[in-house]
């Protein structure tokens, strides 16, 4: 006891600044939230050196597993691990149940929207969503109008980004309906946490997430055209893709072949893998290659990653793709602003998870508002991801704002703007051996086959650069283990 008292506790000097931000751990600057009480006690018992030592255990775990990304641009090919922050983010059971209902509603509606767009286009005829926005989107694949994907499902795997505002309200920031990545970090972060703090889990009842690969495998099984004993593969762009580790990880966890485009061949509208004993039929492809690169005969002819003839095999119903082709039209950042209306239109329900208010540059009135308030808004290109093509107004220079103003005027359809949200913060163990409040978001993974299934958890990304609001790993972000509690 005497020894413990001789040292200041790490959280004694943590400043949550609750007047400016919503802090996940502290309700006020001096009161910790109930579900974080045990964590606070446990971390207060540790010295910075002890925490640093646990952090090293995790870093070695990631490095030896090869969970690294390569920093390009020099010949050395420096490999770094994704920064992992040691203190877990905790979501109480009731909050999660609300998130789960909200996501289920949203994904169900978005899937109905996609089905409609590729069939009767009622929503466009009813003028709920302007037809020109959909038909003019580069992700709308008119070649797929009338094609019926198995079970009528387009978006088998999605990863919506969810944030909390200053009041702590959960908001959807974007829907990633194409090939969302990061789920392997969700799983590996849990493993890392169990290695570094084996006893900590005994103090909390954390919902397990380890069944994700099984759930994924079973929805892929459900969409197989041939039913029983389907042959499933995961199509990766290759080892230079930043998510390659994830592709191999998931293939291994599911026990399926990891293939590159050159491993597959199409003959008579059927897809096969090339094996040492000849050709082997493929029924389902979980593809982590963008639409544009899938088939050089239909999309980009310069693609080195695709399989000539794949799209015809898909149209003929001989192979299932997850996700389906053309889902990007519904996660366009302009379409995003219509999602509340889309939910209302198909389900006749009010959205359980609200959007972030969004201004469309294509709307002349809103464009002039955006131009007048560039220093306060976040401007995003409609089709970019990974934190690229983005202007964070309050952190921008005049030159950057001028550049964006010009781009907005030249191509208004391609831009939206949103108020700068003060994302909620969470303590992170920073380089100066203390806890600092850093902005976070949450990406849960939603699976959709015969029904919607969400593994309780997700990837909590954290902006480790002080003050930064951008959590993307390509922009200096890290991640945390995310604990969803039973109660």
């Amino acid at each position, binding site marked *: 006891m005497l020894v413990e008292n001789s040292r200041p506790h790490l959280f004694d000097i943590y400043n949550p600044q609750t007047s400016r931000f919503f802090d996940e751990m502290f309700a006020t600057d001096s009161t910790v939230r109930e579900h974080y009480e045990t964590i606070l006690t446990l971390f207060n018992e540790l010295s910075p050196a002890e925490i640093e030592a646990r952090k090293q255990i995790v870093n070695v775990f990631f490095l030896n597993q090869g969970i690294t990304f390569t920093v390009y641009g020099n010949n050395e090919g420096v490999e770094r691990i994704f920064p992992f922050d040691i203190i877990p983010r905790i979501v109480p059971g009731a909050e999660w149940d609300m998130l789960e209902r909200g996501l289920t509603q949203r994904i169900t509606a978005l899937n109905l929207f996609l089905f409609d767009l590729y069939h009767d286009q009622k929503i466009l005829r009813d003028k709920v969503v302007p037809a020109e926005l959909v038909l003019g989107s580069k992700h709308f694949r008119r070649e797929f109008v009338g094609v019926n994907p198995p079970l009528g499902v387009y978006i088998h795997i999605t990863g919506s980004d969810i944030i909390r505002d200053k009041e702590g309200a959960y908001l959807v920031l974007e829907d990633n309906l*194409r090939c969302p990545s990061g789920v392997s970090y969700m799983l590996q972060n849990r493993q890392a946490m169990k290695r570094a703090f084996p006893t900590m889990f005994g103090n909390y009842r954390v919902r397990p997430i380890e069944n994700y690969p099984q759930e994924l495998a079973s929805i892929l099984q459900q969409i197989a055209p041939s039913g029983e004993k389907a042959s499933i593969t995961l199509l990766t*762009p290759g080892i230079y*893709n930043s998510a390659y580790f994830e592709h191999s990880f998931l293939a291994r966890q599911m026990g399926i072949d990891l293939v590159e485009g050159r491993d597959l061949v199409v003959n008579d509208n059927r897809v096969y893998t*090339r094996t040492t004993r000849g050709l082997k039929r493929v029924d389902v492809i979980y593809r982590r290659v963008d639409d544009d690169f899938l088939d050089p005969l239909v999309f980009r002819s310069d693609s080195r990653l695709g399989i000539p003839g794949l799209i015809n095999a898909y149209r003929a119903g001989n192979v299932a793709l997850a996700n389906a082709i053309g889902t990007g039209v519904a996660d366009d950042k302009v379409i995003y602003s219509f999602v509340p209306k889309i939910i209302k239109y198909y389900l006749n329900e009010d959205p359980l998870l609200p959007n972030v208010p969004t201004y469309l540059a294509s709307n002349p009135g809103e464009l002039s508002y955006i131009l007048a308030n560039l220093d306060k808004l976040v401007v995003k290109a409609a089709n970019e991801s990974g934190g690229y093509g983005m202007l964070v107004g309050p952190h921008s220079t005049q030159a950057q704002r001028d550049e964006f103003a010009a781009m907005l005027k030249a191509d208004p359809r391609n831009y939206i703007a949103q108020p700068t949200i003060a994302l909620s913060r969470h303590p992170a163990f920073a380089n100066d051996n203390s806890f600092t409040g850093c902005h976070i978001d949450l990406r849960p993974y939603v699976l959709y086959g015969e029904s919607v299934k969400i593994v309780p958890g997700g990837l909590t990304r954290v902006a480790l650069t002080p003050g930064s609001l951008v959590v993307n790993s390509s922009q200096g972000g890290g991640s945390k283990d995310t604990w969803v509690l039973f109660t």
Partner: protein
Amino acid sequence: MLSRVAESMFWMSRYIERAENTARFLDVNFHLLLDLDKITDVDSRAYWEPLIMVTDDRERFLTLHNEFTAAAVSDFLVFNRNNPNSIFSCIALARENARSIIETIASEMWEQINRLYHFLNTADHDILQTDPYNFYQAIKNGSHLFQGITDATFSRGVAWDFVQAGRYLERADNTSRLVDVKYHLLSNSSNKDEMDPIDNIQWMAVLKSCSALEAFRKVYLSRIEPETVMQYLVLDQNFPRSIYFCVQMLQEALWHISGSRHREFATNADRLVGKLEAELNYTTIEDIYQQGLHAWLEELQKKLARIGDQVYESYFSYHTFLDNEDVALAAQRQNTGSSSSRVSRAVWSQLDSSEQQQQQQQ
């Protein structure tokens, strides 16, 4: 199994074996010179240049260095990133191959290659002069650990057979190169009637670099003569680094893959390895000397390369159409197959699409 996966298995295994053999040559050479220094004035060039010849990299070496000094040769063979046969390059290539089949191999295998890679990547280059013994030991142990992990964790399917085939094909080739160069050097200097102590030390070094000294002594007692050493390293049936042993294991692996049995063969690779095995079985060391050891070994290396080509043709090149890449690849195969120079395989086709690969993200 996927042809691409089989090919990566095969090459992952070859590169690990190649790295280990290079570490062996270097380790023994370094210690040999320590012994010789005490006895006589040594022209170190005469001992370091052959190592470059073993690995077939003379021209490349001379573009970078003027002299065959211990420091230049060992750095070139261990750390040089532009030398595709350096230990670093071999481990990096083994790792790239392993990375592309990471879901097929046991995760412990991947972690071990990864550890070895990070060990080399972060090693201080001075260690080659300050603590070579422990450094080379670490490389050899790293390779043995990988093989042990593979042995203990990897399912005995076709993939395992490709790992075995790669390992023994590479090892047979490496042993033949070592024997060739050392014999050439030593036989010029040695007087057949009376073996001087220096020759004795050198022949011991040859055996040591194959970890064969102790095993050799059990068979031939203390008489170390060039013929018996050759007999042992080329034709011994039971020693795991002798050429004949490696060919037997290669044959077993290849026959396992194709399902062939004795006196039958399903592929050209089976036929060629069967032929080579029979030849070695019925060859004596006198037969080899009659033809000339160097010529015989060079012929052997070509035969091994042809077996490698046929493995490629039978299992890896399952193409229903030819694109530019395949044509280029076939041309490269042709070139390498016709001489006895070392065959390498990088991850060619990956590199030129790397930019597109990086674009895919959400």
